[in-house]
């Protein structure tokens, strides 16, 4: 019995850390509508800063003061990010905000690495709380008890701040109607900066508070982000109470999952989330999050023009160039082109659900990496030939997409995106944790093409052919009646329903098609590399595809191709540098700040307005 009690209490103390971090994310989203993807990075920063501030002092004042100060410093870093970056992005499409915060992750990762080094750091022990307390006949570390007490205190603190101060009233008002708050004379910039401070402060506090339990390491940022997203989605975006309850549910499931299912404790968490979201699509305490009311202009960048493009000579030219390349027999060029083509293909599958479908997925690597892993596992355990696996691989991801899609299409907007991310993280963690089957971190090697495609040139042509064929199919689907229905669902699910379109079904099918295609890209990819590692399924891979779309522009069907090629080329070059993440992060941010409407947005309405006016005055 006592082991359960201990496990329960440890779950509660984990919940504290999770709640602190998640509440910060929830607050930031509630007011600014920005999904701060870099929230995990602030959590990590809090831990590192706390580590440095506290050192190995055994003075309780320094310990607790250090925790608090670490949170404050983290909050200030957040303020810097808000002022330099996010403030310029409140009016740009969600996708860009998201990718910008992804840039923040990269920068913080490398900076942390530069300052504190790669080694995991052992956290300080809390003075006076190093022992254990006997509770319910079991020994529980006293620090865990302290953490359990901390979160309700913070919860009450946040509540008082929000419901008993004018600042709190302003924040709640801004959550409802930002424009109106501005029109009443409130400086939104200050308000948002304050909110961002509070959110990052809480993340930093979470990171610092877990120091005695978990120390600090460079994996903390991505390590917590999926859980935090799950908590926020389950609790309801913007709801602090929801975050608290959800943090407890999730942490308890984890704590008990470890007892029963040590290999894949995370599965429980995601299952719970799935069940809760089916019953309550907006989370336990959330309100419906609809994109319907947004005026079209705000969504412009995620739309694809309805007119049919004429058959484009550019495509033919591109294919011609690609076909000629092997004649030169330069191996590394062929390798690079294959990678560019396959990643563009991957980006195009994401574009299909994002552009015409309006479904922003943060977890598309699930299908890309899933295809790769399916093939690699079949090769490893059954030695099946490539001809079979190029069908079996995508078939497996299609089944994944059917399953995942069934849940995801019940949601929309941010919830949809977060759920896809959560599923991708789930798949990643299974691959990562299940060493005995997947090889864990060491991946699977020795996956080479079989049959005629053993010849690199044949493989090259196979890649080009299958990719062009798939892209052609995708384009046909987009301009088919199904494609129109899909766009109708994106533009207004209410109206589509009214004219008898089964919105969920349409979106589900689109999601499945996309999953199948991404799986094909992944299947080819693993053959081109000869090996596969969990990183192909991880969050950064999902973001690669998003960044490619950003670079190429979501509006245009060639966008994924251009973006995919440019990005692959860039990464190939940039990863030669030591601090390439820093570099890439800064480049991403600059790109978004300088071209907030995407490269394709240079010809946006702002310029057209001015030209129109000029025409009239003359």
């Amino acid at each position, binding site marked *: 019995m006592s082991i359960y009690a201990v496990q329960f209490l440890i779950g509660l103390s984990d919940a504290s850390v999770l709640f602190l971090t998640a509440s910060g994310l929830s607050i930031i989203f509630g007011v600014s509508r920005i999904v701060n993807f870099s929230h995990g990075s602030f959590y990590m920063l809090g831990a590192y800063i706390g580590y440095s501030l506290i050192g190995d002092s055994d003075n309780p004042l320094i310990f607790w003061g250090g925790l608090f100060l670490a949170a404050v410093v983290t909050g200030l870093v957040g303020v810097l990010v808000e002022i330099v970056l996010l403030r310029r992005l409140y009016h740009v499409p969600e996708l860009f905000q998201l990718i910008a915060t992804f840039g923040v992750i990269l920068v913080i990762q490398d900076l942390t690495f530069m300052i504190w080094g790669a080694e995991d750091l052992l956290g300080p022990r809390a003075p006076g709380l190093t022992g254990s307390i006997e509770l319910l006949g079991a020994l529980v570390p006293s620090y865990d008890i302290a953490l359990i007490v901390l979160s309700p205190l913070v919860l009450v603190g946040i509540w008082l701040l929000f419901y008993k101060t004018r600042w709190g009233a302003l924040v709640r008002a801004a959550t409802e109607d930002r424009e109106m708050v501005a029109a009443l004379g409130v400086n*939104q910039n200050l308000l948002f900066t304050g909110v961002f401070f509070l959110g990052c402060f809480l993340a930093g506090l979470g990171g610092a508070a877990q120091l005695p339990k978990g120390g600090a390491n460079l994996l903390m940022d991505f390590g917590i982000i999926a859980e935090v997203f799950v908590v926020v989605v389950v609790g309801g975006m913007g709801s602090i109470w929801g975050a608290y309850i959800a943090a407890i549910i999730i942490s308890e499931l984890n704590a008990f999952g470890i007892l029963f299912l040590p290999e894949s404790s995370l599965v429980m968490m995601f299952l719970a989330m799935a069940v809760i979201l089916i019953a309550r699509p907006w989370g336990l305490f959330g309100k419906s999050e609809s994109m319907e009311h947004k005026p079209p202009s705000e969504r412009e960048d995620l739309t694809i023009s309805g007119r049919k493009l004429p058959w484009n000579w550019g495509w033919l030219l591109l294919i011609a160039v690609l076909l000629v390349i092997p004649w030169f027999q330069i191996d590394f060029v062929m390798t690079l082109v294959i990678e560019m083509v396959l990643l563009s293909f991957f980006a195009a599958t994401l574009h299909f659900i994002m552009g015409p479908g309006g479904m922003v997925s943060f977890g598309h690597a699930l299908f890309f990496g899933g295809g790769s892993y399916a093939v690699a596992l079949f090769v490893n355990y059954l030695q099946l030939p490539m001809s079979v696996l190029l069908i079996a691989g995508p078939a497996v991801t299609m089944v994944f997409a059917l399953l995942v899609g069934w849940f995801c299409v019940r949601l929309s907007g941010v919830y949809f995106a977060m759920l896809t991310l959560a599923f991708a993280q789930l798949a990643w963690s299974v691959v990562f944790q299940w060493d005995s089957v997947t090889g864990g971190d060491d991946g699977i090697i020795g996956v080479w093409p079989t049959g005629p495609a053993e010849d690199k040139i044949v493989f090259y042509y196979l890649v080009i052919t299958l990719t062009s064929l798939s892209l052609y199919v995708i384009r046909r689907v987009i301009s088919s009646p199904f494609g129109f229905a899909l766009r109708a669902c994106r533009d207004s699910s209410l109206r589509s329903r009214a004219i008898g379109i089964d919105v969920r079904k349409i979106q589900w099918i689109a999601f499945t098609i996309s999953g199948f295609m991404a799986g094909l890209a992944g299947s080819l990819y693993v053959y081109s590399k000869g090996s596969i590692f969990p990183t192909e399924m991880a969050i950064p891979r999902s973001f690669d595809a998003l960044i490619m779309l950003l670079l190429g522009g979501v509006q245009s069907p060639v966008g994924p191709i251009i973006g995919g090629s440019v990005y692959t080329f860039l990464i190939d070059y940039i990863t030669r540098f030591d601090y390439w993440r820093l570099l890439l992060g800064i480049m991403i941010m600059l790109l978004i700040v300088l071209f907030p409407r995407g490269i394709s947005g240079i010809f946006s309405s702002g310029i057209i307005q001015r030209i129109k006016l000029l025409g009239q005055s003359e």
Partner: protein
Amino acid sequence: MLTVNKLNTFYGRAHILRDVSLDISKGEAVALLGRNGAGKSTTMKSIMGLLKPASGLVEFEGKTISGLKSYHISRLGIGYVPEERRVFAGLSVLENFAVGKQKPRQGGMEQTPENLFKLFPNLESMKDRPASQMSGGEQQMLTIARTLMGNPKLLLLDEPSEGLAPLIVEEMARTILQLKSTGITLILSEQNLRFANLIADKAYIIEKGEIRYKGTMDDLNNNAEVRDAYLTL
């Protein structure tokens, strides 16, 4: 007090306001009349900085305000009461007031909830109630009161009578007249003459984003041709 000079505003690529000019003196009550979709709200939002005009100039008390941020414009003394109410539904009456509260401007008065409860007696009894649990008329009163917490010198009222029962409309008119008597300058957007007649001295008529008529209310009432061309009854 307020001069609007050749304002042009777009929604995306749609050219909505075309060379809109207005001239409002201190203490006046001016009606901005026009049918559905004529551009009344767009004009107000452009003055308020909620929409960025592509060209044109807005001056308030001799200071150029076009291009300033909304909060800045509001702090200079322009109060904006939007159409469709837009109360903060999750906030109580007093909290809604708190959001609208601004420091008094130099030499100006400071508005207090107590004062506002004299003007809007209904609100007092529900001061701790969330705005979501109030009737449409009460919410409309609340948006006006909330804006008054910022001690505005000029008040932009966007269709305050919209969707209210006739009795409530009368009460609304009385309240606005009371406000007018305190010396506050008013711009009132309306679709029909009846309500405007109760309050305004002067009128502009806007149609398809262009000002088509400018004159006193009396002149307008005598000009059946203009009325029939631009207004619904």
